[in-house]
């Protein structure tokens, strides 16, 4: 495996009953790039995400990830909640935030693995536990500032506009100091202005946080704008891979999206 690789998906397959959701799919994400996964509805994009993050166990193939210590691990050997420890974190297509908590608390959930103190230490409020909490809160505030929603830090999630929720989900992924972020449709449901804002945020995350981003998206403007490389899939198979321009000119991709012309 090359040094530059961040995530390497090799020959991945999964079937639900008789339906092959992913069919021998391989692609490689390089360190520090924004990599887009596109495809028509039902192409298997979210399934790829679920396989990488071990919500589904793939039938075949392996997923090699260069973790935060620079070691290459096969994610298929991990349990779902262990994946984040390697430095890989994801967001969800249908926002999975906790309504009963404030924005900042939702962010702090993202830092779960950064805490060391257990229930007794926090219950008795030891100095160490207090310091830890303060540190994480500072980090959360910084991220809220970065996302420009710091004025809502203590507001409840319930009733916030969609654009804010999308940002909080993004912020939560940043809390664990990830190496690779998997974003499932970060621009879904956003208006033009918010989408543009999101594009800029993603580029900033790549450049300033040094994170690699793998995203699934339907909004082609966002994809063409931010992605360094794109992989197009249809019915679980890879159609093509390359820069935005190369993908736009790819015959198979055009066919999958627009149908066959005579």
């Amino acid at each position, binding site marked *: 495996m090359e040094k530059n690789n961040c995530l390497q998906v090799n020959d991945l397959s999964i079937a639900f009953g008789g339906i092959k959701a992913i069919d021998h799919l391989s692609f490689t994400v390089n360190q520090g790039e924004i990599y887009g996964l596109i495809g028509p509805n039902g192409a298997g994009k979210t399934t790829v995400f679920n396989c990488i993050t071990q919500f589904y166990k793939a039938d075949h193939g392996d997923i090699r990830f260069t973790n935060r210590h620079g070691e290459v691990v096969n994610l298929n050997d991990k349990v779902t909640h262990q994946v984040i420890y390697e430095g890989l974190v994801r967001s969800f297509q249908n926002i999975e935030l906790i309504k009963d908590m404030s924005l900042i608390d939702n962010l702090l959930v993202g830092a779960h693995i950064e805490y060391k103190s257990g*229930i007794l230490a926090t219950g008795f*409020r030891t100095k160490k536990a207090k310091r830890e909490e303060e540190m994480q809160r500072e980090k959360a505030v910084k991220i809220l500032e970065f996302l420009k929603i710091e004025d809502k830090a203590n507001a409840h999630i319930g009733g916030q506009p969609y654009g804010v929720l999308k940002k909080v989900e993004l912020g939560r992924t940043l809390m*664990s100091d990830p190496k690779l972020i998997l974003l499932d449709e970060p621009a879904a449901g956003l208006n033009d202005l918010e989408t543009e804002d999101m594009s800029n945020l993603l580029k900033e995350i790549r450049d300033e946080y040094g994170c690699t981003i793998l995203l699934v998206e339907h909004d082609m403007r966002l994809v063409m704008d931010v992605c360094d490389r794109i992989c197009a899939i249809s019915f679980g198979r890879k159609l093509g891979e390359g820069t935005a321009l190369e993908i736009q000119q790819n015959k198979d991709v055009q066919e999958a999206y627009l149908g066959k012309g005579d």
Partner: protein
Amino acid sequence: MREVKDKRRGIDASKRGGSDVNGIDKKGKGRKVTEKKPPYKAYLLFGLFLILLPTIQKMGLIGSATITVLGTVIFYAIVGIGMNVLLGYSGLISLGTAGFMGMGAYLSAYLTADLNLPFLLSVVVSVCIPLIIGLVIGLISLRLAGYYLAIATLAVAEIFRQVFIEFEVVTNGFSGKNAGYPKLFGVIQFDRQLTFIFMVIVLIGLMIFTYNFIHSRTGRALLTMRGSEAAAQAMGINLFRYKLTAFGIATAYAAIGGVLYVHFIRFAYPSGWNLMLSLQILAVIVIGGMQTIEGPILGSFVVFGVPELILKQLPVIGNVDGLAYVFTGVLIVVVIMFYPNGMIYLGNDMKKLWKKGRKHGKEQLPASE
């Protein structure tokens, strides 16, 4: 390949708007994003008020029976707080509360009265044994999704109840088990008043302890698990471990409640630890308010205090058998239908209404800053 600037970990805030580290000062309002201040003061004041009650009783302002009833309210409140961690914060249901409570009660009675162990040691043992048994049951039943914990704990509690009847060496069977007021360090013999004060201290201590861990990583993990298991797993939260933690806390608090019960009431009887009691504990939380520390205390007062203190004094219907159950049942229905957050929010909402009313009144005056 784009050059990656290695500026990971916390983008420098200095670059971005120059706001200070602790909070946000951009608008000059000094609005800080700090932690909500823990309500320790309110808790301690509440505790102080409770501690003064026996003295007030001695002055003859309230009846002696009232103290007994309020003592009951206190240990059921402790059980309720533990149950709330399980039901309110983690969304799991246990129907075995009464069993674990009874086990704590019998063990402590046996250890202090029959084995003459020091009180504090017997408390530790009487909480640890139910806790360990609870964790073993959790280890088995929490692996299954859904309501298996409720079913498993229901069965276990019934088994416990049979054990309470049959295991006469420890429990004295149907005759019931006697226990004394606590004796601290073998010298300080508590009377009813001191036992009451001791229970208040335990209650306030547990309130603070619970508040602390709920407003930390543990509490957030529990709430996340309840809200979205997928999000919890993606954030590295081990679902099984946190379910077990919540169940362990509920069990330990139930056992503590049982220990206090037996040393305050000074008597335990096997049929008292039945399903009815477990359901009443659930009612305590539903009526008082889920996901609050104070809710179970109010709930416990409403479920265990009000029937004894008020309903029984009522003319005519006061003598009806099972009036307390009718009262609790009706209240559950009313609260769930019209006030699902629980009665603990009554005060808050009334304040809001009052403020709104005042604002409304002010608007009629000429506008002034």
